[in-house]
């Protein structure tokens, strides 16, 4: 498993596809995102998981370059572990190589499809696929295979073609059912252990909608 990135890289190279250190388009996008010094916004969060009933939550997010993103809310909120990396900082944290798979259509828009393969085991994802809009220089979609937390499928929707940050993000993820101890009292709280074992991972999503963007750029 640890050798997976190297094997994948070898296979891609052997297949004649252009593997490169870092795709120039991705680098251009990163440079553009790095021009954001700070931003803040109001975010509306809606969880869509079959076994979770949660009211829509609101929070304030704030980012300042060099500092971690902060999310503040008076309520209990569930923040997705992926999807809020607005500056691709997590992707660029450890060395990687990219593989351009050429042009594909995504919802009627021509995109560049790029595979990102970490070249070190330190990275917490094993491979990522990015759909980049080369004209608007925007990230439209990403699919991240993490080493521990399954696959994240993230789509970004922008208010306008030139926007640097998205208006909406949908973070799709895999989640397994809940294991409840028998002594936890609740009506009809029963555990079918065999069913739980057999139950496949479920798909869930969280929808993030941003308002009142205040962005400061270089």
């Amino acid at each position, binding site marked *: 498993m640890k050798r997976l990135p190297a094997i994948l890289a070898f296979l891609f190279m052997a297949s004649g596809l252009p593997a490169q250190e870092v795709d120039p388009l991705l680098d251009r996008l990163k440079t553009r995102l790095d021009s954001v010094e700070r931003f803040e916004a109001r975010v509306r969060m809606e969880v869509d*998981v*079959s*076994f*979770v*009933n*949660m*009211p829509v939550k609101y*929070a304030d997010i704030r980012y300042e370059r060099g500092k971690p993103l902060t*999310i*503040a*809310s008076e*309520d*209990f*909120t*569930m*923040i*997705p*572990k992926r999807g809020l990396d607005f500056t691709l900082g997590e992707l660029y944290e450890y060395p990687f190589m990219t593989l351009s798979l050429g042009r594909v259509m995504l919802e009627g828009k021509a995109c560049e499809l790029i595979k990102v393969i970490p070249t070190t085991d330190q990275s917490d994802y094993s491979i990522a696929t990015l759909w980049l809009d080369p004209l608007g220089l925007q990230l439209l979609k990403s699919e991240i295979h993490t080493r*521990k*937390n*399954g696959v994240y499928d993230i789509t970004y929707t922008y208010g306008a073609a030139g926007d640097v940050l998205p208006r909406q993000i949908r973070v799709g*993820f*895999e*989640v*397994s*059912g*809940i*294991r*409840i*101890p028998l002594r*936890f*009292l*609740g*009506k*009809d*709280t029963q555990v079918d252990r065999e069913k739980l074992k057999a139950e496949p991972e479920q798909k*869930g999503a*969280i929808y993030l909608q941003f308002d009142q963007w205040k962005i400061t750029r270089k």
Partner: protein
Amino acid sequence: MMQLVLMELFKISRQRQTYYAVGAVLVLEGFILMSAFYQGREILEVLLENLRESFEFQGDLMNGNLVIYLVLNSFWFHMPLILMIVVSGFLTVEYKDRTVEATLLQPVSRGGLIVSKYLAALVFTGAILVLLAGSTFGVSYAFFGRGDLVVFLDGLSFFEHPEAIRRLLYAFITGSNTMMFYAVTSLTLAVIFKEATVTWIVAAIFLIINTLLLRLDMDSVFYDYFFLPKLTDSWQYLFYSEIPWGVILKKNLVLWGYTLGTAALGAMIFVKRDVK
């Protein structure tokens, strides 16, 4: 009738066992609160274990609302037990002391006397529930703070603080119907058995069987809406994301039917039977 009820309440207020009961209820509540707090963290860990892989959580779900919910889960077995012991004593003590005979030497009808005892038992139960609800809410919010309530019923349901308070209050009110039923039943058992220890044992067995049968599920509407044990948990329905008010109303109406029927049976036996 009002005079008789007031007289019964006065007698209750003068009995030492009433204060033992109040003390026991409060001590039990304290233990349940503490255990709810310690149990709560563990429950949250389990409930949120899988979501933790995809999410980071902000805010503390281990708050007063969760403690009240866990306390509610424990209340409906322990509190009826204490109530049944105390309420049955309203009559068994009088049988033992022969004050029933003395009372009936006065211009008081047998029917009037037993009905006043049932009404006094309901007032006493109501007062205990108000005390319990007040102290549980007060202590929980004072020590554990406010926040969202998470409940596992047909999935994980999260309720924001104002909604959580509303549902917990309704749960107390709905659950009180069950308490009223057990109080009335214990008085009827006292009418039947007269002797305190026998009444307590039968009341405890009745409660235990009801609690066990509550967990037994059958795919039958009749069973769900008319089988007594299945009527005692309607407070839990208040924690579904969409509250099934119709189900709660039907179950409580049938439960009150049982309550009135049990009281009528007790009154009938009391009126027809020789006091000795």
